[in-house]
């Protein structure tokens, strides 16, 4: 019984999803469903924090590991869900008949993502990955516009299915080489496996599914399309919680391989080139986008590249930096999408011009966007600056000056398109003069997240220490 306490956050999410299902089956009003979803999210968040000091393995030994790393990641994911739920008090871009279903799907996906953070065994990992993915596929298809509904869902799901099939194929080879699906068993055999190219090939195949979730090059093709045409609220979820879960799994796998003396040359080289590809392609493609969500999609590709800088070092510092950046990135992109949700209330597409004169129409939203975009650029005093600093110094520790140089040049290029966004919001006169009214809850969440982004930038100490502890619990 005491074991089940370790599973508390996931249990709350699962029961919450069931409750939401029941609520929408009996035809509860969206307001009720929304309050229930917020409640479940808050409870899951509290439970994740409460389980920080605990560690152990609920159910069967070796399958599911609860420790500080997993609980820390679950906290961020639950926070992401609460954020998305809070800004969807009226999910305008979702068709109205389906409003009540949206929080249920998102909560189910949250459960899957939380399980991803703990999974220590291939079958569990695969099930969690699919549980985190399927509900989001459906949620993307809930768009109110007939033109977008099917198309963006088909594109997203098709690529997701292929990526997960590739992951599965890789897992079968790892099973074949080691005779086990347990992470601990595979870890014990790493020394003898390290010499076999087939093992590294299989490991790369396994990574494909998670690199897809992260939208890293060359698995990024879905990102711009899905970001542009999925309902705003769903994209917010994909851009925050989903990214954190993917980074957590990548950290766990990297930590498995990281112990010194192992020749992981192939893995690091491939990840490094993926990082370079993602940064360069994401930033260059973002330069010529006129659609705000599409631009943020390419920016997500670029940021996947920055995170991979930390992961490809396969060192404790690098993984800590990646985890730290994951929290910061979720908060920063969350802020940008909060503004998208508010500004794009009546539109299916959100061209950059729709931000025109935002500082007059809604000064608080404009400030939120400013902080979010400054974070994505990497300007102090936001977490974007200090997070990149940590990532780059982890790479320099490994002597990868060229990689850091490429990343720095990329950050400079990115400045251009981010400033275009800021320019629309602050320097252009409004096209639609009517002031934009924002709900209390949204403003509250915007304030709290802005506070997080700035606090992590000015006093990163506490978050950095917690990230170090988390990665230490992993290795």
């Amino acid at each position: 019984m005491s074991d089940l306490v370790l599973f508390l956050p996931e249990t709350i999410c699962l029961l919450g999803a069931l409750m939401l299902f029941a609520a929408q089956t009996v035809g509860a009003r969206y307001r009720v469903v929304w309050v229930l979803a917020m409640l479940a999210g808050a409870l899951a968040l509290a439970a994740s924090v409460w389980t920080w000091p605990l560690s152990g393995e609920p159910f069967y030994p070796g399958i599911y590991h609860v420790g500080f790393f997993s609980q820390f990641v679950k906290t961020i994911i639950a926070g992401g869900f609460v954020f998305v739920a809070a800004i969807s008090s009226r999910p305008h871009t979702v068709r109205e008949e389906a409003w009540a279903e949206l929080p249920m799907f998102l909560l189910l996906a949250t459960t899957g993502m939380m399980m991803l953070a703990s999974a220590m065994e291939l079958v569990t990992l695969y099930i969690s990955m699919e549980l985190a993915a399927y509900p989001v596929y459906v949620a993307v298809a809930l768009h109110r516009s007939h033109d977008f509904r099917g198309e963006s869902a088909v594109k997203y799901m098709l690529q997701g299915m292929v990526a997960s099939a590739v992951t599965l194929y890789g897992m079968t080879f790892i099973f074949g080489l080691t005779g086990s699906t347990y992470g601990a068993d595979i870890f014990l055999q790493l020394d003898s496996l390290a010499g076999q190219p087939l093992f590294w090939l299989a490991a790369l195949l396994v990574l494909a599914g998670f690199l897809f979730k992260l939208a890293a090059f060359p698995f990024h093709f879905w990102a711009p399309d899905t970001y542009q045409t999925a309902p705003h609220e769903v994209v917010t979820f994909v851009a925050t919680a989903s990214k954190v879960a993917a980074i957590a799994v990548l950290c766990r796998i990297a930590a498995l391989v990281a112990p010194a003396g192992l020749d992981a040359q192939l893995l690091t080289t491939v990840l490094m080139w993926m990082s370079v590809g993602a940064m360069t392609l994401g930033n260059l493609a973002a330069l010529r986008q006129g659609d705000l969500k599409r631009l943020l999609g390419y920016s997500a590709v670029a940021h996947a590249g920055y995170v991979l800088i930390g992961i490809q070092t396969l060192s404790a510092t690098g993984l800590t930096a990646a985890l730290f950046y994951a929290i910061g990135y979720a908060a920063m992109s969350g802020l940008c999408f909060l503004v998208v949700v508010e500004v794009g209330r009546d539109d299916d597409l959100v061209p950059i011009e729709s931000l025109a004169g935002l500082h007059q129409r809604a000064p608080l939203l404009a400030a939120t966007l400013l902080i979010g975009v400054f974070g994505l650029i990497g300007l102090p005093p936001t977490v974007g600056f200090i997070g990149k600093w940590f990532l780059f110094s982890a790479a320099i520790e490994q002597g990868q000056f060229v990689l850091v140089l490429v990343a720095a040049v990329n950050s400079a290029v990115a400045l251009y398109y981010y400033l275009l966004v800021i320019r629309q919001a602050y320097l252009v006169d409004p096209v639609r003069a009517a002031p934009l009214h924002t709900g209390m809850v949204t403003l509250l969440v915007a304030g709290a997240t802005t506070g997080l982004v700035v606090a992590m930038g000015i006093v990163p100490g506490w978050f950095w220490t917690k990230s170090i502890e988390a990665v230490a619990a992993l290795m």
Partner: protein
Amino acid sequence: MNLESFLLLSLVLFSLGLFAVLAHRNLIAVLIGVELMMNAASLNLMAFNRFSVTDPVTGQVFVLIIIGLAAAEVAIFLSIILNLYRTRRTIDAEQLTELKG
């Protein structure tokens, strides 16, 4: 029959599936391609199970779970395709060009 021939067969299946995904325009055909890729993985698991793994239970459970998840996946994808067909009257991947970048 030995392990290698099974692995080779599954590799052929996997490649055929991937080819179908990349080359076909009809979304149903694409879905069949994805299913082929997953079946290749299942075949791999069973082959390893038979020839090289001491505990044969794990692989079989894994395959059963894959079959279940694949069914769920097909259900979701088909319903999305159906939705697409209702609004667009086509399931041709080439005609999904509303979005461009």
